C-alpha cells in the first residue's frame, strides 16, 4: 500500500510544478503517456486538440467561453475523452480513471492541464518547500 507516498514535482521548469503521467483514450486508441500539470486555476481540464483528434475524441457541441487577461473573450469547444492516470507513483485506491470526461480542446502547442473537474476527485497536499505532493 503506497497510500501517502510523496510524489516529486516535475523539474522541467522553474519553479517545479506538481504533475503526473496520464494517457488519453477514446474511439481510435490511446496516446503515449503525457505529463499533465495539476492546475487549480483551471476550471476545466485543457488538452491540445491534436491529441483529441489522434484518439478520436467526440466533439460534443458544447462550448465554453473564457476571457484572456487583456479582456478578450474566446470560445473553445468541449470534447468527450477518457483520461487515465498511468503514473507509476500513483497510490493504490486513488481514482485513476475518468471516463468520458469533458475537456477543452485548444489549438496549437499546449500543455495538458488537469483542472478542478478532475482535481475534485482527489485530496491533494502540496509541499512546496520540498517540491513534492501527496494524493489520497
Amino acid at each position, binding site marked *: 500500500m503506497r497510500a501517502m507516498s510523496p510524489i516529486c514535482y516535475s523539474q522541467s521548469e522553474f519553479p517545479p510544478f506538481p504533475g503526473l503521467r496520464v494517457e488519453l483514450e477514446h*474511439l481510435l486508441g490511446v496516446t503515449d503517456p503525457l505529463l499533465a500539470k495539476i492546475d487549480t486555476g483551471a476550471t476545466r481540464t485543457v488538452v491540445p486538440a491534436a491529441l483529441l483528434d489522434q484518439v478520436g475524441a467526440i466533439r460534443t*457541441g458544447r462550448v*465554453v467561453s473564457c476571457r484572456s*487577461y487583456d479582456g478578450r473573450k474566446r470560445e473553445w469547444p468541449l470534447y*468527450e475523452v477518457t483520461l487515465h492516470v498511468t503514473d507509476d507513483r500513483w497510490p493504490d485506491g486513488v481514482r485513476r480513471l475518468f471516463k468520458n470526461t469533458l475537456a477543452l480542446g485548444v489549438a496549437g502547442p499546449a500543455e495538458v492541464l488537469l483542472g478542478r473537474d478532475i482535481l475534485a476527485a482527489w485530496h491533494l497536499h502540496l509541499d512546496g518547500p520540498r517540491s513534492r505532493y501527496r494524493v489520497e
Partner: protein
Amino acid sequence: MPGTDDLSKTLETYGRAKLRRAVNELAQQELPSSSLDLSGLEADIIDATRRLLITGEVSSDSVLMCIAYFDGATQADLADSFSIAEGTVRKRIKGFLEAVVREINEPGETGAGGDTDAWTWRDDHEAYERERDSLGREYPGCYIAMHRGEVIGVGDSANEAAREGLEQLDRPTSLFVIRAGDPLPEPEQLGMQMEAPRSMVCEQ
C-alpha cells in the same frame, strides 16, 4: 449589407473562414457591370458570406480585386443607372471589403477556438444549425456525426455515430456528434482565464 462598423458582429455571426471564402468567391464572379442592381449586389455579398461550399483561404489580392471592381463599377454605372447616393454606397461596399482585408491580415479575437483551418468547429455548428430541423426529421432520436457540414455517421449513441463516421473518413479526427434535432447548448461561461502566462519561456 454589413458596414465597417458592423464587421465584428458579422464575423461573429458568420465566422472569419466563411467571409474569406465569400470574398474569394466574389473575386471570381462575373458581375454584370452594365446592369448593376445595387440591391442585388448587396444581396450577393450577403449570400456569399453564407455560403460554405468553397474551401481554402482568400488572398489579399482577391480582396483588392473586389475593391477595384466595385470601385470601378459604381463609379461608371451606378450614378447613371440608379437615383442613389453613389458615393455613400461605394464607401459602404469598399469599407466592408477593406475591413475584411484588415481582419485577414490582423486576425483578432473573433476567431474562436484558435482554429486556423479553413473549416472550423464553429462552421460545423453553423452548418448543423441551418439543417437542424430537417436533420431532426431525417434521423429522429438518433445521434449524428458531422464532418464539414455532412452527416457521415448515424447511431443510437454518440459513440456509435462517431465510430461510423470515423470509418467513413478513415483518418484520425474528433467528430462533432449530436442528437439530431437537438439545439446546440448555449456557451458555458467559465471564470477561467485562458492564454494566461502559465509558463515562462524566458525571464530577464
